[in-house]
């Protein structure tokens, strides 16, 4: 349908609009210029903005982030593409030891964005499918953003670029071409740190993010047929967490189901469960449940990957158990 933009279009649009608006915004990454990015998120930007602003780099993830940090300390607003977010592990030191601590240590902020595709579901195997947000979401000094819709992909990326400190922007590759909508008029900036209630409900709360949001909405539609109204919260930002929206919902429904694609142990769900235990104990009518990927690497074969990922039947079973509690 004309007028609709995919999640991937939305990212490219946000980059172009921010580069147009602010001459300090530059892009660094592998194959982002001439090739337009492995997923084409930067297609056409080299032609529009030139090689001084769209910089193809060698395969040096650590140095790309290091150079972005350096450039940010001299007044630019670099946006780094990780070809796959799995490879951010190569820049872990730069991100967690250096960028995250810089303002605290020295008083000088590091306004960089590190963006790229994360997540499974496209049969990409153990090194191109991970959801590494958990490694970063417990690092003070970072912000971790995980959009699930095209409008949020555009609006949150713009907010990330305008932020004065490092933001990790984890796109979900499964949503690149599946999520689409007509983008809002105007700037469309979406503030970092605020969750969205995607579907209101009174019986239980599903807290999730990224590519699990559409799954949660499918489950909620199914549950509605059974007379169970599930509220679906899309966190959108993992650090800082919008605790209020989650607490407000759980105080209303008294039941919480935490859904994520990242592995179970010490995932985002664990932090939310702890927060609910501290602050919503007296409102809870059932145990807090988690539906997550298991604690294993991500398998390659489609049949194995399908079994690995949280699916509709598992989610429905958990939701029904909560509803009946």
């Amino acid at each position, binding site marked *: 349908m004309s007028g609709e933009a995919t999640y991937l279009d939305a990212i490219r649009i946000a980059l172009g609009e921010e580069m147009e608006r602010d001459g300090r915004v*530059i892009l660094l990454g592998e194959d982002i210029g001439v090739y337009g990015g492995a997923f084409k998120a930067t297609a056409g930007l080299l032609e529009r903005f030139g090689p*001084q*602003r769209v*910089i193809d*780099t*060698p395969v*040096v*993830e*650590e*140095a*790309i*982030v*290091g*150079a*972005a*940090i*350096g*450039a*940010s*300390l*001299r*007044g*630019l607003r*670099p946006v780094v593409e990780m070809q796959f977010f799995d490879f951010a592990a190569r820049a872990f*030191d*730069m991100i967690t*030891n*250096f960028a995250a601590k810089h*303002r*605290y*240590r*020295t*008083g*000088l*902020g590091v306004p960089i964005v590190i963006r790229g595709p994360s997540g499974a579901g496209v049969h990409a195997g153990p090194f191109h499918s991970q959801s590494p947000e958990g490694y970063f979401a417990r690092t*003070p*000094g970072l*912000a971790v953003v995980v959009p699930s819709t095209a409008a949020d992909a555009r609006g949150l990326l713009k907010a990330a670029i305008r*932020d*004065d*400190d490092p933001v990790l922007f984890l796109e979900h590759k499964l949503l690149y071409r599946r999520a689409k909508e007509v983008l809002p008029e105007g700037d469309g900036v979406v503030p*970092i*740190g605020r969750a969205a209630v995607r579907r209101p409900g009174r019986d239980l709360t599903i807290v999730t993010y990224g590519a699990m949001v559409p799954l949660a909405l499918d489950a909620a539609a199914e549950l509605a047929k059974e007379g169970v109204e599930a509220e679906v919260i899309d966190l959108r930002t993992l650090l*800082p*967490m*919008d*605790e209020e929206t989650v607490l407000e919902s759980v105080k209303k429904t008294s039941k919480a189901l935490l859904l994520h694609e990242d592995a179970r142990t010490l995932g985002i769900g664990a932090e939310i469960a702890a927060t609910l235990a501290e602050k919503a104990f007296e409102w809870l009518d059932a145990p807090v449940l988690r539906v997550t990927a298991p604690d294993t690497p991500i398998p390659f074969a489609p049949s194995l990957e399908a079994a690995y990922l949280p699916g509709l039947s598992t989610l429905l079973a958990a939701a029904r158990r909560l509803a009946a509690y």
Partner: protein
Amino acid sequence: MTTSPEQQRDLYRHLLLTRLLEERMVSLYRQGKMTGGLFRCLGQEATAVGSAFALEEGDLLIPIIRDLGATLVRGARPVDILRQVMTKADAPARGRDGFLHFCLPEKGLYSAIAMLGTAVSVVAGMVLADRYLGKKTVGMTYLGEGGTSTGAFHEGINFASVQKLPIVVVLEFNRYSYSTPSEMQCGAATLADKAAGYGVASAIVDGNDVLAVVEAARRAVAWAREGNGPFLLECKTYRRKGHAEHDGQAYVDPEELAEWTRRDPIARFERHLDEGGVLDAAAREAVRAGIDAELDAAVAEAEASPAPIPDPEFRGVRADEEAVVKRREETFVGGLR
């Protein structure tokens, strides 16, 4: 480009300031007034001072922890350093980090980074930004043998070479990386050999000859500024103390240490100043007296500075942190620990 008598006197002052300030810090360390370890520049002063001396105003420098001399040349004041090592509230890092871990951006001085090699791509990014902004800035940073073993060094120098970025990496060959001798750190005959693998220029200089260091560093800086890409400048010097003051350096051959003590860079420069009639013994004594007086005042001032007071909201991690301030406060149920 020769080094004028005026510049030689300035160099001497910085060399001596580095050494005497370090001696004050040793004393503070032994009195338990310092926070953390003391990483000495002793024996390497000519490398640290001479290299930084080649930069111009507006240029950028990221030292490593042993480069006190380079930091002073860039304009850090002794009182800044003393407050840093005593982690005072009015230190540049306000007690949040120590010693050479602070930024004075108006002086083109940026914080040392504990993870060695990291600074190469960071300084490369700084001059990449400056080039984009139309400035002809040169960036200088430092590494020892150990630092050149890191992946960060290789990635950084490779990126800088591809982008032809104007950086000078001063490779301080000082014989030990903590306790590990150079032959256990690096298989190449020299650190400068590594330049060929990245298509960058290099040179080796006697790191204990301050005038040779200044002149080699000027050539390196000019090379970079003219757009030829990075330059690796290996300075052959020697770390005369252990990794830090706690380290008794039992792994060092005493004869090797004695030999390098005889090659002391400051004594060597003093002989040169005598021979050239640039600064005689009496004049040098006056320089020393001036530095001593300056350091007396700086030590007193830094000791009088207050310790940092904990902030109950632990602010300053991000510019926009309202959302997390509340969570941090909850860490302290019943008040500040």
